[in-house]
Structure formats: C-alpha cells, structure tokens
C-alpha cells in the first residue's frame, strides 16, 4: 500500500509542491522589491535634505559673532508652520543659534536632543527617527571670520509621510501584481501537468480496457519516456496470454486424454475378469495415465521458447548432464566424446536446453552401444547440436514414428515407451528449431538439433 502521508497522484504531488514553493518564492521576491524601492526613496530623501542644508549654508551670514539668516528663505517650507521641513543651526557648544519658523511647533525634547559632537567636519549623518516620523540630516561646518573660526551644526528634519505614502501605494500595487503572477503561474503549472501527465491517464485507461477484456494490448501512442514501459507491458501481457492459453490447452488435453484410460478402467469393473487380469488391466491403464500426465506436465513447465537476447553457455549444461549420467549408469560405462566449439551459447531457457539434451543423452545411454559423441557448433545464429551413438540405430521408416509417440499418447502407447523424444521435439519446435533422426557414422542413431544460438559475450 502507498504511504498515506504522501499524495497519491503524481499530479497531486507536483501541485502540492508548487503550491508551497511558488508563493514562497514570490513573497521573497516581493520583500526584496519593497526593500529596494524603500532604499531608493530614502536615497532621494537624503539628497533632498543635503540640498536644503546647502541652501541654509548659502543664506547664512555672521556679524559680530551673531548668526543671521534672512526672514524669507528660498525654500518656503522653512517659513510655513508645520510644513514638514524644519531647519536648525546649533553652535559647537550646543547652543541653538537659529531655528526655522516652521519648527516652532516641534516638541522641545526633540530639539534639545539634536546637537551632537559625534560628527567631524566633512561628515554628514542621515537617519530615520521612526517615533517622530522624521528623517534627520546633519552637517557640521566651520565658518571662518575675521575673529577666527566658528563651528556650527546644521540640521534638517523632513517628515517621512511622503515616503510612507509612496511605500504604501507601491506595496499595494506590488501585492496585486505578485498575487496575479502567482495565480497565473499555478494555473499554468496545473495545465502543463495535466498535459504532461496525460499519457499516464491514457495508459491507465488502456490498462482498464485490457482488464475489462475490451482489448488485448496497449494501443495508444505514447511519448518516448513511457514507450519503454508500454512495450514491456505489452510483451508481459502477451507472454501471460500465451502462457494462459498453453495452460488451458494443456489442461484440456490432459482432461481429454485421461478420459480414455478412465473409461477402460470403468469398463473393466463390468467385465467378468479374474483378479490377475483385472490387476493387469488397471496397471496398464495407470501406466498410460502416468505417461500422459508426465508428458503434459513437461509441456506445461517448459518456457514458451522465445529466443532470449542473452545466450547461455551450452557446454556446462552438457557436462553437468554427463557427470550425472555417469553416476546413474555406473553399471554401463561409455566412451563419451564432447566436441564443442568454444564460446557457443543457446539463446533460450537453460531448463529447456537441459531437458532436451538430458533426454537425448539418456536415450543414447539406454539404447546406444559403447560410444557416444556430443557435438555442438554455431552456424550463423543457429546452434547445431548432435548426439550420436553406436547402437542399433533407428530404421528409416521408424524415424518419424518415434518422434511422434508422445503426441499420440492419448490414443495408444505401448507401455514402457518413453516420452523423452516427444518432449524434446516439443521444446525444439517451440524455438522454431528442428529435430531429425539420421544414422551416425557408427551406424547407430544420430539426433540432430537446430536451435537459436549466439556466441557468448
């Protein structure tokens, strides 16, 4: 089962991820923009204040240690009460020499705090006083007169209301735009995802159709990334379908072919037979059923014989078989010769190869004389296998018959006759190969097999 803490669909996951990340990015971008805009406004404010300081400086005059400034300054803001622009000139000792008319309504506490010794001539200070909602610009000067030099500190205070207003308007505008962008981006993301993930929906639908039995393979055209999956699925479905069909056929064949011996046994109970005959009849039919079951089982178990991309080595299979044959037929040792071209492989299932070779070598041990030869070589993409012996051989008119024995098991089979060759033939034909019986150079039997093969990588 899927982890319940994770969104189930790909689309859900992607949307959830972008719904979290996208607004976060946009908020951060908004904050950065606000900050940049604010500092650019403050810079403008600072230059404005500096200009006004220069203005005051230009208007100043000193007579007999007395500072004089004209009644009407160039900037009318200094003259109008509460105009939002205020000027002060303090002496080096903090004594207030001059204050603009506009500043008369400012609280005294603020005015007393203005003088500062921190600044050296040539330096200036620009700062925001958030409580008073003012910007402060201070500039110390040294005035040289006949009597020597006099130090002054010129301060200009400006209301921050304009900047606050502009920031507010800008923030609102920014919020609108960014929200809009966020929404559009999320929507676009949603549609891109829908479009991008559509093939998966198609795939799910296709699979549902297969499940419902309306189709037997994935039909839709899929993008490159999904193509591999759909092709594998199609192969899997096809393999499964073939397997099912084979099982069905096998089951059918099995049930069908068991009916005859069963009928014979049932008939036997009605016959007036003595015990020995009855036993013999039942035994015979049981043997026949055993052969049928064995044959059908072997057919069902073997792979469907599709040639595989990777070739499996042939010689080790033969060697394993020979070493167990030596054990099983310890009472009748043989001269076995292996003639294998090095590095040859069988493009198929190892089990099938073992079953095929096992049956052929077993036959050579059972019906051959003293010598056995197993040869294998590659001819293009064909693996040629030969198992020869020096036994009685197979008469030409019997060669087809012995291969078909298994196939005709359900009609009549002589008891005790093996089904190995029938199984071997079955394996060979499932690989579109061939199996033929000829005469070996010692006048015995020679079984010649062709199968798909390849050199070992």
């Amino acid at each position, binding site marked *: 089962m899927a982890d319940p803490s994770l969104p189930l669909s790909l689309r859900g996951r992607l949307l959830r991820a972008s719904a979290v990340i996208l607004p976060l990015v946009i908020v951060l971008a908004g904050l950065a923009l606000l900050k940049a805009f604010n500092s650019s406004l403050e810079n403008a404010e600072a230059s404005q204040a500096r200009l006004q300081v220069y203005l005051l400086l230009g208007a100043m005059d000193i007579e007999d240690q007395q500072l004089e400034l004209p009644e009407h300054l160039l900037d009318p803001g200094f003259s109008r009460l509460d105009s939002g622009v205020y000027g002060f000139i303090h002496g080096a000792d903090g004594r207030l020499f001059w204050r603009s008319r506009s500043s008369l309504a400012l609280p005294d506490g603020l005015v007393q705090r203005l003088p500062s010794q921190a600044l050296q001539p040539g330096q200036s200070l620009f700062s925001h006083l958030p409580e008073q909602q003012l910007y402060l610009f201070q500039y110390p000067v040294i005035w040289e007169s006949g009597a020597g030099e006099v130090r002054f500190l010129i301060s200009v205070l400006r209301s921050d209301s304009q900047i606050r207003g502009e920031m507010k308007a800008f923030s609102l505008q920014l919020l609108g735009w960014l929200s809009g962008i966020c929404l559009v981006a999320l929507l676009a993301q949603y549609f891109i995802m829908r479009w991008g993930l559509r093939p998966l929906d198609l795939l799910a639908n296709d699979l549902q159709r297969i499940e419902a039995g309306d189709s037997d393979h994935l039909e839709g055209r899929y993008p490159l990334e999904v193509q591999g999956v759909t092709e594998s699925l199609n192969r899997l479905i096809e393999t499964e379908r073939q397997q099912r069909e084979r099982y069905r056929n096998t089951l059918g064949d099995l049930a069908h072919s068991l009916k005859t011996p069963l009928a014979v046994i049932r008939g036997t109970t009605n016959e007036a037979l003595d015990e020995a005959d009855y036993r013999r009849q039942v035994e015979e039919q049981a043997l026949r059923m055993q052969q049928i079951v*064995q044959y059908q089982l072997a057919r069902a*178990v073997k792979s469907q014989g599709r040639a595989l991309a990777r070739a499996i080595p042939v010689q080790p299979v033969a060697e394993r078989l020979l*070493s167990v044959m030596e054990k*099983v037929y310890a*009472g009748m040792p043989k001269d076995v010769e292996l003639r294998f071209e090095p590095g040859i492989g069988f493009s198929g299932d190892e*089990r099938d190869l*073992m*079953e095929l*070779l*096992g049956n052929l070598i077993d036959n050579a041990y059972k019906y051959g004389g003293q010598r056995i030869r197993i040869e294998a070589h590659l001819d293009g993409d064909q693996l040629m296998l030969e198992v020869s012996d020096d036994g009685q051989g197979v008469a030409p008119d019997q060669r087809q018959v012995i291969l078909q024995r298994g196939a005709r098991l359900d009609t009549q089979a002589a008891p005790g006759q093996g089904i190995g060759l029938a199984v071997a033939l079955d394996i060979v034909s499932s690989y579109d190969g061939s199996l033929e019986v000829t005469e070996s150079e010692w006048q015995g039997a020679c079984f010649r097999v062709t199968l798909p093969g390849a050199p070992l990588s």
Partner: protein
Amino acid sequence: MKALVVEDDADLRRQLKQMLEQKGYTVEESDNGREASYLGEEYEYDIAVVDIGLPEVSGLDVIRHWRQQGISLPVLILTARGDWQDKVEGLEAGADDYLAKPFHGEELVARLNALVRRASGHASPVLKFGLLELDTSARVVTLSGDEVRLTSYEYRTLEYLMLNAGKTISKAELTEHLYHQDYDRDSNVLEVFIRRLRQKIDPEQTLQPIKTVRGLGYRFALEATA
C-alpha cells in the same frame, strides 16, 4: 539389507516399506528431513530412499548434510517432477540414482539392489566367487551351476556376507542388517543359520567360504572372480 525410507506421504511410505520388506529389506522410516538427517548420521544403513519434496528440510538438504558429514550411504531420490533440471540437482546434491513418481515397485527394488551392489564394488548383478555364484536380481544361488535352495533369511545372510566379502561382520551387525527389529536376536539362532548355510553351499566342506572369526563374527573368505 537395512534401508531408510524418508517420505512424508503416509500411504506411499507404508507401500514403500511393504515393497522393500517383501524383497527382504529391513526398513526404518521417517516422515521428515530433520529426523532423517539425524538417523542417517547415527545409524548405519545399506541404502536410503529419499523423497525430494519433504516439508521444512528438503530431501536435497538431507543428502547434502549426509555427504558433508562424510556419510557415503547410497541414496535413491524420488522426484515428483521428473524433469532433467530436477534430476541433475538431486544427483549433484549427492544422490546416486533417481526415480520419478509414480513408479513400479519392481523397478524401485531393482534400482536399490543395483545401488547396494555398486556400493560394494560389484558392477554386475551376479556376484561370482569361483564355483559359487549369487544372482542378486533373480535372488538365486548356484554352486557349480546347480541351484542351491536357500530360505529367504539364508539368502540374505549370504548376500550380505558376499557384498562385504573380506570384511569381518559382527553378529550384532549381521542381525541388525538382516532381521526386523522384533525378531529374536538370540545369537544362537544366527549360529544355526550359518551352520545350515555352510552345509548348503559347501556340502563337501572344500571351499570353506564362511570363516568364523573368534569373538568378532564372520567373514566371507572367497576371492571374487570376474
């Protein structure tokens, strides 16, 4: 001959036991691999019949265990599938022969006899010791070509001694390998058997095939001839 039958299906196990006992084997049975591994390790058998498809510890594992312990007792495996992959795996695990289910009792016994004989170094079913011959497949003993009529116990005693020719077999071993558990193990009975057997196979007392090794047991003293 003492056989161990390892098969989890009770009906088949009963049939196997019956089949083998009819042919003169002494049979011990087990229905699981764990017990079988232990039995094979602790007791001496002449042959074992092991079903591959046992629950829990498989027949292949039992055989591998025995072989790892250096137990060379001949083993015949019973397989239900009977394809070569299966047979090869069984034989590579250490079994000596296989039989696919279902099988014929006669065939099983023939295979077992052959395995026992092979284990004692005789390739042919006929054990030849000069004038005296014993055909393990026909269960017939001949002296100079004439059949010697033996009882089942006498035959088995002679066969066992011949298969172990040259070795001294204690009375206890002989009793254990030849007679059922419930048989009276009085050693006098065995002595009577041996005496009668000697009279039958060597009436002229010229061959002296069965020697008594005082205090140890009996030894079949003739040389095998091809």
